[in-house]
Each structure stands twice: as structure tokens, then as C-alpha cells.
């Protein structure tokens, strides 16, 4: 059996209600909860609260109000997975930049209103907080990456992505450090601490720049080596996973084939089962999903079951997918019955094909064979398989089944189920 599935994005749950998240919070979980709701890193929300603290102290007031008003959400998993999920959600950086600009606009507005401490304190602290957030975030991400389990084999392109991520991390961390250093210099300058130290600061800056120019190639080489070492480690794990999978599947099947070489039917079944597993593994990088995972998985499992039982090759093509509920499960059951009929009556030499197409509003499954075909009107009334298990089952679940068949022209069973998007 050959399979080809094109999954559509599974619609996720709706936006979570705004709640505090004490499990991931530093104090009461207000920033973590707001970050979760907006889909941005909680560190960005904390930065906004800190910034608003210097706008007349409104930040702590807002925080206390939110603490009182917002209910605490259930304790969820803490640490890197949630941060990684937030980081990889689409639009996160756009939302984060928008929140940052809104906060900056609010700060400038408070400054214009006169609700303000001092430029010499507020702006350096805002800059330092932004730099610290970047450095802290980068450090936390690096720890999370190093602590991440590596049991799954990396997908194609993951090695290159890891190298790119390492390079971006160097830039991001460097920018954070530069922000902190700039904030410190700005604070000293704004408070007059540098007035008598101008020459000394200039000398220090020149020395630092010169040292940076000298050491830059070594730092670059070190960063490149680290990235290359990580890429090599991932490749090595990938090879080990590949070897383990080949041993557990292909080599075991070959051993069974040698043992049962005198039974061509058993050998053919073993070969087909191995082909199914290999195709599923090649397509997704992981073993085939459980039959109840989705409509496409259910159809593939049904096809495999019929193929093993009747020895007829069945090709499954699924465009889109849908979760299994009572209605879609009925489609799978009806398709299985149609497959059994095709396998029984079309003959072992007539290939059977299943084509499933899932859109927002409709599920359609076609079961085709190129066998002898039949006249649907000539089916005796006591043969209830097609009438009850296919047509009746679909109608009971609000769908319909149409049989296109004629003697000598093969058979096609069309199953249609309208769905509410």
C-alpha cells in the first residue's frame, strides 16, 4: 500500500482567557498571564511594567490592580517548552514590537504630561532593562536548548536551522550587552559623572574597541566552532536514530522473510507492511500515527487492515485531514466496508485506491477499484453489506454514499459528509 497525506493545519483552541499564571510568574504571575494571552514573552510585559514604573509610578499600580482583578489560572508546565511555544507562534515578534512601541509612546506621553521622574534616571534604566531582558532571554533559551531532549531524530534542515539560530543568538546577546553598557554610560553622562573623566573614558573606549577588533576573529572562530560541533552532534544522533530504526524494522522484516520464504502470501504481507511503515516514516520522520488520531490515519489503518486480510494492494491518498468524531468515524467505517467489498469482488490483480479530500465544510472519500464491476440494481435484497454498512451508515450520520458501477467498468463508492466549519 502506498500512502500520501497532506495535513492541513489543525485549528487550535480559541484564545485563552486572561488569567494570572503564578506557575511561571516571578511575583503573582500577572505578566506571565498577560504574555500568554498576547502571545509574547512574559519578559517583554515585565519590561513594560518596569518602564511604566518610571512614568510617575503607574506600573506598580497597574500591576496591583491586575493582581486583584485577574483570577489565577491553573498551574501549567513551567520553563522552556512554554517559552519556546510562545516564541515560535506566528506574529510573536510583531506583537512584541507593537507592545514595545505602545509602551514607548506611553512613556513619552507621561513625560509630556509631567508625570515623570527624570530623564537622567528613566531612559538609562529603560535601556538597561531592555538589554538585560535580551541577555536574560538569550541565556534562558540557550539553557533550554542544551537541556532539550534529543531522542527524536532531527528533521531535514534542522541542522542548518540550529547553526543559524546559534549565529542569531550571538548577535542578540551582543546587542543586549551593548544596550546595558550604553545605558550605564548614558546614566553616568546624564548625571555629570563623566564630566571630569572625558579623556579617561575616551581612552577606555579606544582600548575596548581595539581589543574588540583584535579578539573579534577569535570570538568568531569560537562561535563558528561551537555551531559546527553542535551540528555534528545532531548529525551523529540522526545517523544513530536511522541505524536503530533500520534495525528495528527493515532488518527484522528481512529475517522474517528468510524464515517464511516458502509461503509467498506471508512474504508479500510482510513486504507490504514494511513498505507502509517505511513510507510513513519517510513522510513524517516518525512512526505511523494511531488509527484514532485523525480521519487520514483511520483510513490508512483501515486500508492496511484490509490489505493484510485480503492480500490486495491498496493505495491511500489523503488531502487534508480532520479529527475523528462520530461522523468522521462513520466515514472511515463505511470506507472500510467499501474496501472489503472491493478486495473481495474485484480480485487480487485489481488495485484498489482510496482518495480522501477534507476541506473546511466537507469530507469526501472515494474508494475505487478496477475490477469486474457490477450492476447495483441487480444486488439481491438480502445482501445488506453495501446497503446498510455503507449507504445506511452514511445517511444515519447526515452524509450520503453514491455507488458508481457498471459491469466491466470497475466500481467507485463516493462518500460525502458535509461539516459545519
Amino acid at each position, binding site marked *: 500500500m502506498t500512502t500520501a497525506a497532506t495535513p492541513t493545519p489543525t485549528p487550535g483552541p480559541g484564545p485563552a482567557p486572561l488569567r494570572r499564571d503564578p506557575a511561571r510568574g516571578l511575583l503573582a504571575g500577572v505578566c506571565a498571564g498577560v504574555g500568554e494571552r*498576547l*502571545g509574547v514573552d512574559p519578559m517583554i510585559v515585565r519590561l513594560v511594567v518596569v518602564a511604566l514604573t518610571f512614568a510617575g509610578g503607574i506600573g506598580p499600580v497597574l500591576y496591583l490592580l491586575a493582581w486583584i482583578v485577574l483570577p489565577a489560572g491553573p498551574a501549567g508546565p513551567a520553563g522552556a517548552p512554554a517559552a519556546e511555544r510562545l516564541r515560535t*507562534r*506566528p*506574529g*510573536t*515578534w*510583531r*506583537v*512584541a*514590537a*507593537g*507592545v*514595545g*512601541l*505602545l*509602551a*514607548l*509612546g*506611553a*512613556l*513619552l*506621553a507621561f*513625560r*509630556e504630561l509631567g508625570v515623570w521622574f527624570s530623564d537622567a534616571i528613566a531612559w538609562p534604566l529603560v535601556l538597561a532593562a531592555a538589554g538585560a531582558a535580551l541577555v536574560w532571554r538569550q541565556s534562558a533559551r540557550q539553557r533550554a536548548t542544551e537541556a532539550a531532549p534529543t531522542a527524536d531524530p532531527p528533521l531535514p534542515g534542522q541542522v542548518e536551522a540550529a547553526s543559524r539560530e546559534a549565529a542569531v543568538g550571538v548577535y542578540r546577546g551582543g546587542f543586549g550587552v551593548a544596550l546595558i553598557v550604553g545605558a550605564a554610560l548614558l546614566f553616568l553622562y546624564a548625571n555629570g559623572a563623566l564630566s571630569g573623566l572625558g579623556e579617561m573614558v575616551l581612552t577606555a573606549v579606544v582600548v575596548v574597541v581595539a581589543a574588540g577588533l583584535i579578539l573579534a576573529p577569535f570570538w568568531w572562530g569560537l562561535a563558528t566552532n561551537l555551531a559546527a560541533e553542535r551540528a555534528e552532534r545532531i548529525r551523529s544522533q540522526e545517523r544513530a536514530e536511522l541505524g536503530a530504526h533500520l534495525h528495528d524494522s527493515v532488518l527484522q522484516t528481512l529475517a522474517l522473510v528468510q524464515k517464511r520464504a516458502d509461503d509467498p502470501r506471508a512474504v508479500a504481507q510482510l513486504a507490504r507492511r514494511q513498505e507502509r511503515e517505511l513510507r510513513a516514516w519517510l513522510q513524517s520522520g516518525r512512526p505511523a500515527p494511531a488509527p484514532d488520531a485523525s480521519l487520514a490515519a483511520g483510513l490508512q489503518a483501515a486500508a492496511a487492515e484490509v490489505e493484510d486480510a485480503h492480500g490486495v494492494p491498496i493505495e491511500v491518498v489523503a488531502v487534508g485531514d480532520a479529527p475523528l468524531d462520530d461522523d468522521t468515524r462513520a466515514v472511515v467505517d463505511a470506507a472500510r466496508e467499501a474496501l472489503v467489498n472491493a478486495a473481495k469482488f474485484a480480485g487480487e490483480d485489481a488495485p484498489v485506491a482510496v482518495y480522501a479530500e477534507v476541506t473546511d465544510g466537507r469530507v469526501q472519500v472515494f474508494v475505487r477499484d478496477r475490477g469486474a464491476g457490477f450492476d447495483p440494481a441487480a444486488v439481491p435484497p438480502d445482501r445488506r453489506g453495501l446497503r446498510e454498512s455503507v449507504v445506511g451508515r452514511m445517511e444515519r450520520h447526515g452524509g450520503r454514499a453514491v455507488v458508481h458501477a457498471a459491469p466491466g467498468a470497475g466500481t467507485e463508492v463516493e462518500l460525502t459528509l458535509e461539516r459545519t466549519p
Partner: protein
Amino acid sequence: MRRASDLAALTGGLVTVALGGLLALDAAGAIRLSFGWLWPALLAAVGAILVASGLAQRDR
């Protein structure tokens, strides 16, 4: 998806109308829009559009 796209477009339109209204009031002499107020308004406008478009992109 349609609603998500509309959110970004609606926010952009509302923000542009609000900015235009402020500038029109300033030109008519009804308010005095100084440089110190214009920057926060522009930053908030761009920030609102970015947040709306980011949320819209996420909902697609």
C-alpha cells in the same frame, strides 16, 4: 481568516483616521499639537498596527 485580516485593516484605518483627525484639529487651531505630543501619538499608532497585524497573522 477573514475576520483576522479585517482586524488588522480595521485597526490601521481607525489609527489613520485618529491621526488625521488630530492633525486636522491642529490645523484648524482647535488644539495645539506640539512635537512632544506628536511622537507618542505616532509611536502608539505604529505599535497598535503592529500588534493588530501580529494577532491577525497568528489567527490565520
